[in-house]
């Protein structure tokens, strides 16, 4: 017992605010157009998920489908693309953006101060799931924001969904969504859930989460780092200053 107490005291507080730690130099975040694109198409054919699209004289990256592998940057001979460490890529869906301000304020009033989340894996590789688990470690301490994971969808305000929707989990997705009481939010976590394209087309895959249920927040990443998830959560609750 004394040893346990000594360990607790010696460790001290390790919890930090989510965006204080600098992003490592090699961290693979958002891919941006750094200089004029030559429209050769090498990047888009190198992309494993079809996230890089070539316009007339520019290139656009579908952040939701991007797995941040950097293959497009290696393929580009003109140095037009650049990988940054930016992870704050969470975005609200149109439905949440377009919702009247009054209604939005009401949701924030209802859910904003304490949010109960149910995790739902509909076909993930478990990397996103492990990052959700990491949110509860003493460094990120999700509870410091008044947010926590709960054991049942019936206790939840939000579903955090990971993975491409597999054929074998479609029923579980629909039933879990039904079980969450209104009003509810849905976050598509990572490239699989947000785009459904990570593993291509297969007999066992049905697509992204928004093919089946309305999604309010998309958080890109493969997997999104815990800070990116926290950014997405706080964005949904209108708590990003």
């Amino acid at each position: 017992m004394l040893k346990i107490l000594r360990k607790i005291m010696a460790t001290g507080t390790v919890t930090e605010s989510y965006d204080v730690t600098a992003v490592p130099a090699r961290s693979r975040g958002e891919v941006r157009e750094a200089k004029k694109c030559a429209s050769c198409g090498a990047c888009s054919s190198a992309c494993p998920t079809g996230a890089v699209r070539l316009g007339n004289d520019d290139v656009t990256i579908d952040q939701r489908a991007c797995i941040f592998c950097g293959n497009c940057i290696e393929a580009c001979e003109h140095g037009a693309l650049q990988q940054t460490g930016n992870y704050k890529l969470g975005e609200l869906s149109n439905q949440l953006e377009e919702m009247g301000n009054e209604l939005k304020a009401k949701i924030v009033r209802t859910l904003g101060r304490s949010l109960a989340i149910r995790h739902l894996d509909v076909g993930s590789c478990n990397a996103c799931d492990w990052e959700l688990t990491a949110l509860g470690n003493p460094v990120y301490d999700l509870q410091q924001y008044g947010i926590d994971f709960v054991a049942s969808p019936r206790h939840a305000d939000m579903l955090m969904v990971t993975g491409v929707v597999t054929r074998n989990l479609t029923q579980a997705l629909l039933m879990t969504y039904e079980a969450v009481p209104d009003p509810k939010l849905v976050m598509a976590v990572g490239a699989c859930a947000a785009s459904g394209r990570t593993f291509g087309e297969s007999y066992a895959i049905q697509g992204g989460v928004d093919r089946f249920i309305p999604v309010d927040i998309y958080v890109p990443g493969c997997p999104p780092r815990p800070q990116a998830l926290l950014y997405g959560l706080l964005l949904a609750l209108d708590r990003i200053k």
Partner: protein
Amino acid sequence: MIKNFTVSVNNLRAAANACYSKSRHGLLAMFANDERPINGKFAIYCIFDGRNKKEMLLVKAVIDQHAPPEFPSLTPIIPAAAWFEREINDLFGLMPIDNTDLRPLVLHENWPLGVYPMRKDFDPRTVVPEAKKEFPMAHAHGEGVFEVPVGPIHAGIIEPGHFRFSQAGEAIIRLDAKLFFTHRGIEKTLEGMPIKRALFQVERICGACSVSHTLSFSQAVESVAKVEIPERAKLIRILIAELERLYNHVGDVGNLCAGLGFAVGTSNGARLKEYLMRLNETLTGNRFLRGMVVPGGVRNDLPGELLTQIAETIDKLEVDFIQLVELLQENDQFLDRVNTTGILPYQAAKELGVVGVAARASGVDYDLRRDKPYGGYEQIKFEVPLHRSGDVAARLWVRVDEALEATRIIRQMVTRIPVTAKKLKEPIPSIQPYSTGIGWSESPRGGNIHWLMMEEENRIYRYFVRSASYANWPALTVAVPGNILPDFPLINKSFELCYACLDR
């Protein structure tokens, strides 16, 4: 060296039996391949461990396309074949005669009868109608026996699987698991894909075993392409693979504490794992070490300042981790829960072909890094920890010992990498169509074995993945009965099986 034997399907059992009796660790993998477009035949492949470090035995049995789609089951002589055969039956429609349990495994009640997605004439874009079949679960009968269904959606942040417990009061008398919920059909989507692109899907079979799967894939490609990778790449790969082992084991020691409500252990394990994940991102740009291992070598170098950072982090972590382990070793309430709980007997581990931590905790002394050395492991010094009691405690102590052993290997790499030549990668030449290769690596959970057959233009004809969790899941249903239901989460955590690795 791989010794190949090709037999007709009628001789499969005899040939398999001969190899099995000569083998040290039994059946490693068994799968089918639709070779009708090449030679008009289906093939069943069985890979056995050989008797010595260099040897693997591969039996290929061929079934003519006009013959009945069936083969003699190996399960009566080799229990480890049971799930492989059910999978072949599901995905290829080739029936193992004499396998007494042919319930569906991979395809659930929503999949119609008579549609076999891994056959070459199945177009991946086919819209397969929803079926509404029954999914039979195994039961126990008797007065007062009741069932507890759990999942596929669990109460924590856990992957999906359905468990059916047959209970006599608190005691579990039978456990059946319905898995493959996250089955993504990766082996099918890889078919026809260039190896350069296939890499990204293989890397995403599983998050926590990303490096190991990529390593097995790359080594399979390198073996078929006859490429020898540069020395520096070998050492960087070992370093990365051991970092994967370390973060998994450290995190799992913490997670095990969660299985019995020891919060100090849980949060310390999670804290230490976080430091390692941050180190991973600093080194490779990804917290799961993705994007480092590629066929032919590694993608990025690890310059001196990063190696120094690794050494510093590992030194600090080791002290902290040993203090955490001491909190467990001297804690009677903790030991009371883990000792003699969830025993996997030696004989069961051996017959089911159990691998990794689970095997080495039940006295099965087998580690691919030492017993089938690959990718430079033959030149480095390390111990393979072994425990014999087969309980939750044994699996925990094996993890602890292996984590500490991993820090020693990492330190060796930190000193050895700087003195190697700078070259990181060899190009992959054009590969002979229909040649085959095997790649393997010891993941934190045990051996991951990948087999591939190539076609034209360096595209994949067939890909097969035998993950560590595939070999170990059936062992869980052996270790659990006789324990009480509240101990199930603890036993399950001590095996630490991936669902994504199994389901693919």
